[in-house]
């Protein structure tokens, strides 16, 4: 299988490329980026089957030509609200399957429009298979399998800013914080006000309690088939001062992304710093044998691992498995249990929240 990684020289791209370079299923790995020196150095470290691919993602023809060299295109290029639609459309046009780290609502909606073209091209497109959507989609599926009927899904994220202080990630945080969150409320899709309704959520240790706010995320596209009463996504930063700065920046119209980034770079070092770990928690409320039950599952690791491990695994499975073509959610494309088992063997373990016996 030939794989192309777009944005392969960023923090998550490097880790994803390293994961794919170790895979026996990958016969040739093309690592794409803009800086020839960085790509050369990276590919020489990763082994003989890894080759550089100079790509200017702003040049559509160049991007399509690069995608034609691969069977599976993996996109780590960000921020997603700027890159996702272009990269996914280029892969479909080149006849390659596509998987990315996208976690942007509008980009997810734009990629969903590619469904017919993806089916005609016989390729699979998964817009977002990192931490969320990705691991959280699998956790939600695992929890749903334990219930007779599902009523409500709450996805919560606790991100350590210090875990991934890259320009693309900061750009995404600012964009997500200022976009209206898409939710399902009383069975209907709706948009809420961004950055509102702060709430403490208890994540797997060592993260623990983190203040989260309503967050713009694309999950509402993935659960459209299920008759849910409620679906929402919340997010918070484990560094409290950085979260305060991010929330303040939302209401300051003149602050640029680079100014916010400089502020966050300082703010995340102020005490109390909180744990330098990221975590996700999925609560699924439903009924089992007539009783209302809440299943709470979670993961904890460094953000770069939580993003790159599922992405690399999804790329491997897209290349080796036989999948129905079209735009799919992670839980539609892959079996949740075997996916989580494979992630566990790479070090990402799933935990279940159980009440403490009195």
């Amino acid at each position, binding site marked *: 299988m030939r794989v192309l990684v777009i944005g392969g020289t960023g923090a998550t791209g490097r880790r994803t490329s390293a994961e794919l370079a170790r895979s026996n299923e990958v016969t040739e790995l093309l690592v794409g980026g803009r800086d020839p020196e960085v790509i050369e150095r990276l590919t020489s470290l990763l082994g003989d089957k890894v080759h550089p691919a100079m790509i200017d993602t702003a040049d559509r023809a160049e991007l399509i030509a690069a995608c034609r060299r691969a069977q599976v295109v993996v996109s780590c290029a960000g921020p997603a609200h700027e890159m996702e639609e272009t990269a996914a459309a280029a892969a479909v046009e080149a006849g390659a399957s596509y998987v990315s780290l996208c976690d942007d609502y509008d980009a997810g909606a734009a990629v969903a429009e590619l469904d017919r073209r993806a089916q005609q091209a016989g390729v699979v497109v998964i817009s977002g298979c990192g931490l969320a959507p990705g691991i959280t989609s699998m956790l939600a599926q695992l929890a749903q399998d334990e219930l007779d009927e599902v009523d409500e899904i709450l996805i919560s994220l606790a991100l350590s800013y210090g875990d991934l202080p890259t320009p693309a990630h900061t750009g995404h945080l600012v964009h997500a914080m200022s976009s209206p969150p898409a939710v399902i409320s009383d069975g209907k899709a709706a948009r809420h006000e961004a950055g509102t309704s702060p709430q403490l959520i208890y994540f797997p240790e060592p993260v623990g309690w983190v203040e989260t706010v309503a967050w713009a995320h694309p999950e509402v596209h993935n659960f459209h088939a299920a008759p849910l009463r409620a679906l929402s996504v919340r997010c918070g930063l484990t560094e409290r001062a950085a979260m305060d700065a991010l929330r303040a920046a939302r209401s300051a119209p003149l602050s640029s992304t680079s100014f916010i980034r400089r502020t966050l770079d300082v703010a995340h070092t102020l005490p109390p710093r909180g744990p330098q770990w990221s975590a996700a928690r999925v609560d699924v409320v439903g009924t089992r044998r007539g009783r209302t039950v809440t299943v709470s599952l979670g993961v904890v690791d460094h953000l770069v691992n939580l993003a790159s491990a599922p992405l690399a695994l999804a790329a491997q*499975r897209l290349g080796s498995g036989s999948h129905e073509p079209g735009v799919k959610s992670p839980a539609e494309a892959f079996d949740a249990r075997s996916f989580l*088992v494979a992630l*566990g063997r790479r070090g990402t373990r*799933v*935990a279940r929240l*159980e009440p403490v016996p009195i």
Partner: protein
Amino acid sequence: MLAKLLRLLTAALLGVVGLWFGRQVAHSKTPPPQGRWREIPESELLGGAAGSGKS
């Protein structure tokens, strides 16, 4: 003029420190753990893996 500016800057600085301190106090009491996070072993995860038809 300079003295007025200094007073203004001092007030602004104290305000920022006050806000920060207020946040620290407001968040100093976190609730007790909601429960115990138990790692799900591979055997438990594999319990229902068969027959999904997905990879």
